[in-house]
């Protein structure tokens, strides 16, 4: 396992000199990082939801071991893509920036004792765009969830299909659709959690194919980007356009959930869908392990 990933997962303590303060991009409030983590990355001053790191969200939701799958898949450069920089350079930069190997983390663990397959996308990696590795990890997640007969939850955050992988990226919409359908046709429960932002080829494929679709409060969700629409119609869109609340009003999603309530909501939904309210042991029967610091300080 690479060192950065072990740091990410809290196996190696990160440097003491790490900046402990950050500024809220909306209200400018200075926020103490450990406190921000404890508040699940919600600004205590203005209530802004920070976009969460994939592993922070995994830790927020999972209360057991989390066994990652597909983590060793390496992103190819099938088109030999170059624009201002090369695609491999962009990937290196994003790996550095996000401490992730790709735009989604997939794996198995338990939420409220329910064993689940969980995928969490991360906007910090190429805008959460879906390329071949993201598509492959999602397909693997559905396939393995089907084999294990456990529900599948995917938290989306994506600008759509990844342009740098061209049509191979677009085809991941078909691949994830087929995997989701095969999983669901076997009678398993698929729950989609739309987080900020969820647009394009991801919203138009597996994100909107779930049995139940919940959205995190205030998240931007839509098909076309807001700028594209504004350019097409040549007028400014209202502020609430494409928000989770807007979609709820239009009937496109099942519920809007505040981030601090998300885990409890998922547990209730799993309870309805899977039916067994009794807490189950973790997949390995082991106690919870490998927590990140940020989560240790977070309220349960």
């Amino acid at each position: 396992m690479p060192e950065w990933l072990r740091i990410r997962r809290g196996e190696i303590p990160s440097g003491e000199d790490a900046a402990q303060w950050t500024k809220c991009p909306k209200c400018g409030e200075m926020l103490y990082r450990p406190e921000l983590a404890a508040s699940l990355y919600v600004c205590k001053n203005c209530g802004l939801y920070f976009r969460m790191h994939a592993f922070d969200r995994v830790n927020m939701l999972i209360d057991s071991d989390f066994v990652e799958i597909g983590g060793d898949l390496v992103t190819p450069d099938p088109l030999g893509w170059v624009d201002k920089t090369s695609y491999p350079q962009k990937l290196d930069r994003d790996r550095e920036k996000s401490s992730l190997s790709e735009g989604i983390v997939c794996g198995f663990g338990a939420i409220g004792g329910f064993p689940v397959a969980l995928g969490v996308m991360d906007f910090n990696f190429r805008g959460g765009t879906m390329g071949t590795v993201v598509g492959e990890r999602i397909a693997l997640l559905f396939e393995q969830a089907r084999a294990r007969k456990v529900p599948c939850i995917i938290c989306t955050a994506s600008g759509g299909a990844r342009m740098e992988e061209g049509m191979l990226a677009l085809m991941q919409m078909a691949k994830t659709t087929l995997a989701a359908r095969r999983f669901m046709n076997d009678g398993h429960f698929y729950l989609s959690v739309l987080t900020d932002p969820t647009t394009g080829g991801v919203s138009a494929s597996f994100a909107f194919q779930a049995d139940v679709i919940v959205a995190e409060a205030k998240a931007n969700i839509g098909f076309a980007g807001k700028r594209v629409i504004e350019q097409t119609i040549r007028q400014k869109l209202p502020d609430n356009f494409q928000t989770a609340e807007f979609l709820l009003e239009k009937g496109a999603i099942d519920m809007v959930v505040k981030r601090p309530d998300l885990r409890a909501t998922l547990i209730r939904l799993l309870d309805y869908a899977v039916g067994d309210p009794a807490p189950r042991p973790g997949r390995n029967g082991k106690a919870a392990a490998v927590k990140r610091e940020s989560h240790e300080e977070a309220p349960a």
Partner: protein
Amino acid sequence: MNVIVEREKGLLQLEQRIADLRKHSADQPVDLSNEITALEEKYAEIQREIFGSMSPWQRVNMARHPKRPIGSDYIAALDQFDELHGDRHFRDDVAVIAGFAKLKGRRVLVVAQEKGRDFKDKVRRNFGSASPEGYRKVTRLVKLAGHLGLPVVTFVDTSGADPGIGSEERAQSEAIATALATFADVPVPVVATVIGEGGSGGALALALADHVIMLQHSVYSVASPEGAAAILWGDASKADEAAARLRLTSDDLREFGIIDEVIAEPIGGAHRDAQGTIASVMTAVDTAIETLKRSTVHALLDRRYAKFRRIGTL
């Protein structure tokens, strides 16, 4: 401005001159055959020069050529067609034409994206960009095809799904996602042909198919060249550069294993022999259905799964 239309102008003039000379030589006792032969040679040379090796951007322009055969031309060439309308909820989106048909005597369900021919028709059809209702009509009728055991034949030609306010309000994402899910499940052969522009998710929504065909000069892309250029360089006018990078030609996509078959176009593009091109497409579609029909439903769905499952597998 369409770069193919521009380059075609000289050729068309030359064509006219040759025709005039022929007429003239038939009326007059003068022998013009040498002049005609010379002009014809020149014509062929220019034709080779223009169409011999087209750049990706020229292919995009060919795919958007105003005279290129569009969905309704293919529908008109069917033995029989009865249109079925509407999504049963909101309206009939005429950016998609769908209905029962007979193709070489075979009962099928046809779905075609329709850009429209004259300006009024184009506006009415939203230039082939379907709204959620269009995709919901597709979903409804593909399910019907599954119910009746009819093979599904789709013709893809769109710059993309409609990005308007109404489409967002009525959940464009959900409409496309559900269309994709329906094609994933439908227990009958599905054959898709990209006849012009295959614009991103709005095109894929009709192309999750057992057999995907592309006309030689059609294009199929993750993003429009203009959109990609705007994102990459903040300059939509660099669309030609973006087109080259996106690998959107039929050759590229055949190489990537994303499409199954390429149908050659006459020199100068499909519109130079629309009926011939359409006939070759219909033959290819029919052959594909014939092959696919030999599979059991189970094998068909397994094959469909495997076909897309391997794309991008490392």
